[in-house]
């Protein structure tokens, strides 16, 4: 049966027995959770992302890095892709509680359409990544 409520996006949530700052530090370090890091350093806004996991290598560009502050949840967002597949958009929210921290992940596949198809988004993201690498 088709899971209509999920549509073209996948949502996952986890509650962790750790402070938001600590969770945020781990989230910004791809090697801690996204797989084997293929480049050094933390995720930076406008920077690139490269990891290898059981199902292959993923490359991407980082769109937003907003640390958790007081009442505001932390937010990470990036576009990434595997091989020739179209890029997908990932958003990670970090919501602090009194004792525990909730992490919510949404990965979305843009719908192909006349205006902005998935392939176009992938191309744009690749151009951005290449530009970034050249100017770095």
């Amino acid at each position: 049966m088709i899971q209509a409520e999920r549509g073209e996006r996948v949502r996952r949530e986890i509650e962790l027995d750790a402070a938001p700052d600590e969770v945020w530090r781990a989230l910004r370090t791809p090697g801690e959770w996204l797989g084997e890091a293929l480049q050094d350093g933390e995720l930076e806004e406008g920077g690139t992302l490269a990891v290898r996991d059981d199902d292959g290598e993923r490359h991407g560009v980082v769109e937003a890095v907003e640390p958790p502050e007081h009442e505001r949840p932390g937010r990470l967002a990036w576009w990434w892709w595997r091989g020739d597949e179209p890029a997908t958009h990932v958003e990670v929210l970090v919501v602090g509680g009194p004792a525990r921290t909730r992490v919510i992940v949404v990965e979305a596949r843009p719908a192909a359409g006349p205006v902005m198809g998935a392939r176009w988004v992938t191309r744009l993201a690749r151009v951005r990544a290449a530009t970034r690498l050249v100017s770095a």
Partner: protein
Amino acid sequence: MSTAGATGAGGAGGDRLGAVFGALSDPHRRHMVETMLRDGETTVPALTAGLPITRQAVAKHLGALGAAGLVVGERGPGREVRYRLVPGALAPAATWLRATEAAWDRRLHRLRGAVER
């Protein structure tokens, strides 16, 4: 047999899956797909009876589902066109959803290991 609407789902490969997800992004179209999953074949009047939209809107949505390769229409013995799902057309979308969910479960499990020590 005639396809329900325009052909051309935007090329092969990944865009094909994007077209499927695009077609499924509308709640009325999802309702129509679920009706066909349940009933097998259906018609524009039958679909219109179950939705708060016009016949014309139903026909347009069927066109979008046809363009994404999800639905085909076939003229029956009468003049009425009967619509049904293309076998296997939803499988790649289901596969992507399952694989992506499994990948995030794996990553979040690693995250737990990294911060709960």
